[in-house]
C-alpha cells in the first residue's frame, strides 16, 4: 500500500543512512554479547551483576596482553580472554554464595564493590592510557556495500554477533542444557526435585555470561579502545538494553540491543544533539508504558 512518494523516499533514506544503520547493527551486536549474559544471570539467579562491565573491560585487556604484548594470534587471544571470563564468573559465584540468602540488593552492592576493585586492578596492570587491539589482518580493509565503504571488521563483528545470538538462542531453546536453564528460571525447586544440581547450573550460567562479556570486550576493543571508564559506559548501555528488552529474556536482549544500537548510530546521524537523550528517553518510555520491558514476563 505504499504510495509512489513513500516508495521513492524509502530507498533514498536507506541510501543516505545505510552506513549508520549497519553501524547500529554492529554496535547492537556488541551490546548483545554483554546484555545477554547480564540478563540470563539476572533471570536465573536474581543477581544484577554490576561487575559485568569490568569483566568486559578486563576481557579486552587480557586479549590485548596476549595479542599485542605477547604477539599471539587473535584466536589465542580470544580463547584466553574467554577462559578468563569464565573463570571470573566461577569466582563471582563463589564470592556471592555466602550472601545468597540476603536478597538481590545486597548482592548488587557486592558486585558494585567488585566492579570498583576490578576497574582499579585493570589500571594497575594496564595503565590508564587507552589501549587498542588492531583488528585481524585479513579484516583490516573496507568493503563496498551498496556503493559505500564499510570496514570489514565491523561486518565481521556484526556477523559474529548474529551468529552468537543464533547459537545462544538455539542452545537455550533447542538443547537439553537449554531446557534445564529455562526450567530453572521457571521453577528452581522443581528442577532440583528432578535430580538436577541447580547450583551447578547457576554457576555454569554465571561462567557463560561472564565469558560472553569478556568476549565482547575482545571484539569491541578494536572499535572502542580500552581505557578506564569504558567499563561503566558499556555497563550502563547494557543495562538500558535489558531494561528495554525485559530482564531475563534472550529475545528481549537481542531486540533491546538492536534498538539501542540504532539509537546510538542512526540517532546521532539524524538528530546529533538529541542522541544522548534519545537513549535514556527510550528507556524511560518503555518503563513507563511497559514496566516489565518489551519481552519481559511478570
Amino acid at each position, binding site marked *: 500500500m505504499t504510495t509512489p512518494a513513500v516508495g521513492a523516499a524509502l530507498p533514498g533514506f536507506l541510501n543516505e543512512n545505510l552506513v*549508520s544503520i549497519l553501524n547500529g547493527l554492529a554496535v547492537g551486536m556488541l551490546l548483545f554479547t554483554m546484555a545477554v549474559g547480564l540478563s540470563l544471570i539476572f533471570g536465573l539467579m536474581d543477581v544484577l551483576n554490576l561487575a559485568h562491565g569490568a569483566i568486559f573491560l578486563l576481557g579486552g585487556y587480557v586479549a590485548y596482553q596476549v595479542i599485542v604484548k605477547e604477539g599471539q594470534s587473535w584466536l589465542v587471544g580470544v580463547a584466553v580472554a574467554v577462559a578468563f571470563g569464565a573463570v571470573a564468573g566461577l569466582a563471582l559465584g563463589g564470592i556471592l554464595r555466602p550472601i545468597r540468602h540476603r536478597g538481590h540488593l545486597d548482592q548488587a552492592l557486592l558486585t558494585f564493590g567488585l566492579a570498583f576493585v576490578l576497574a582499579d586492578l585493570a589500571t594497575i596492570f594496564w595503565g590508564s592510557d587507552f589501549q587498542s587491539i588492531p583488528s585481524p589482518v585479513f579484516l583490516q580493509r573496507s568493503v563496498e556495500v551498496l556503493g559505500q565503504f564499510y570496514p570489514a571488521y565491523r561486518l565481521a563483528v556484526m556477523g559474529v554477533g548474529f551468529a552468537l545470538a543464533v547459537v545462544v538462542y538455539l542452545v537455550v531453546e533447542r538443547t537439553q542444557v537449554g531446557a534445564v536453564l529455562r526450567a530453572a528460571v521457571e521453577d528452581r525447586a522443581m528442577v532440583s526435585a528432578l535430580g538436577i544440581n541447580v547450583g551447578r547450573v547457576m554457576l555454569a550460567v554465571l561462567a557463560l555470561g561472564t565469558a560472553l562479556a569478556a568476549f565482547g570486550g575482545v571484539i569491541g576493543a578494536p572499535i572502542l579502545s580500552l581505557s578506564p571508564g569504558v567499563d561503566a559506559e558499556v555497563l550502563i548501555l547494557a543495562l538500558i538494553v535489558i531494561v528495554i528488552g525485559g530482564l531475563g529474556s534472550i529475545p528481549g536482549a537481542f531486540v533491546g540491543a538492536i534498538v539501542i544500537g540504532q539509537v546510538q548510530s542512526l540517532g546521532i546521524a539524524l538528530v546529533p544533539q538529541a542522541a544522548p537523550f534519545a537513549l535514556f528517553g527510550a528507556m524511560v518510555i518503555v518503563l513507563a508504558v511497559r514496566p516489565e520491558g518489551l519481552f519481559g514476563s511478570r
Partner: protein
Amino acid sequence: MDEPETTLTRRAILKRAGAAAALMSVPALPLGRLEDVAWGAARQSRPLRIGQLLTLSGPLGSVGADLQKGFVTYVRQNGSRLGGRKIQFFVEDDAGDPRTALQKAEKLVSEREVDIVTGVVPSNVAIALRDFFHSAKVPLIISQAAADELTRGESSPYIFRAAYTNYMIGASMGRWFYRNIAKDRVFTAAPNYSAGQEIMAGFVDTFQKAGGKIGGQVFPPFGTVTDYQPFLSQIQSARPSAVFAFFPGAEAIRFVRQYSEFGLKRSIPLHGAFITDPAPVLNAQGSAAQGVGTSAIWAAELKNQRNTRFLATYERLYGTGEPSTFAATGHNAAQLLDEALKSIQGDTSNKARFLKAMKNVGTFQTPSGIFTLDPKTQNPIRNFYLRQARFENGKWQNKLLSNLGSFRDPGK
C-alpha cells in the same frame, strides 16, 4: 589543546613515579649531588617551594607525568637549582577534575605554603583555578592547559603560560594548509567543547586570511561519542577537498581509525592538531595515521644544542624512549621560571618584583627554539613545527617536516 595522552604503561609510570617521589619527597634533597649543596647556601637559606598541580591519574595521567619529567630534566640540567636557589617540590594529583584541583590547590597554598605553582593539564582545570590563584595572589605557571580565555578576558597578573593557547595551535596550520593541501571546500571536525572550538577558530582565522574557504564544520559532542561514523558519513556526503581535525586522546584514536576504515582516507586528505599525538595514540592508530600532518611546538629531530642536551639528560634520567612534546613544555616551564628568577637573583621575597621579573623575562633559547614571553599577554610567542606520521625504523613516529613559523595569541 589539552587532552592528549602518552605511551607509558601504568607500570612504567609507577616505576617513574617512584623515582620521582624519591627525588621530591625529601625536603631540599640536593638533586644534583654534593657540589651544588656547598655552592647554593649563600643567597637564600630557604629553598624555593614549588607546587606541581598535575593530572597523574585517569586518562590524562601520562600527560602530567611527562610534564613533570620535562620539568625535572631542566632542573637536573641546571644543577638542581632554579635561579640559583635550591628547590623543594610538592606534587598533587588533580585526576583531571576541576573540583579536585581546587582542593589540591588549596592544600598546596595553605598547607604546603608554596611560593609558586606549575603544571595544570586540562583547560577546564585551569579555568577553575583561575579565580583561586588570582585571589590567593600566588603565581601560577601553566605548562599545558591551553584555554584561550586565560590569555584574554580572564587573564590575571598571577598567571603565566609556558606552552601555548588553543588559538595558536589551530592558527599555526592555516597558511600551510592553504598553500599545500587545499584552498577551498575544506571541512573541519573537532569535539564540541572549548578546546575544539578554539583550535578550529585559530585554524579558520589564518586559513581564511591566507585566502582559503571553509566548506563546512562538524562538532560532535565531547566525551560521549564512541563512534564517529555518523559524522564521517556527514563529511563524506559533503565531498570536501580536505579535512582539518582535532581530537584528544582516545577520541583521536577512534576518529583517525574510523576515518580510514570508512574509506574517507582514500579520497580526502586528513591533517590537523594533535590527532596523532602522543606516541600511544599513534601506535594505536597504526597505518590509519599514515601521512597525517600535525603541528607541534617541538620535535625530537630539532638540531640545536639545547635540544641535544635535553634529549641526553632525559635519556640519562628516564632511560626509555624519547620525550613527548609534553615533556618539552614541562621543560619550557622550568626554564621560564629559571630565567625570571635569575634576573632577580632568586629573591622571591618581594612578590611584586618577582611578578615583574616573570612578565619581563623576554626572549631566550629553548630546546624548541626561540621563546619569547609576550609581556602583554604573559603568553609565549614561539615556533610551531609540522610533523607527519610515518613508519620508520620499525615503529610509528611523527617525523619533523618543516618549521611553520612563529605564532602568538592576539590577546584580548
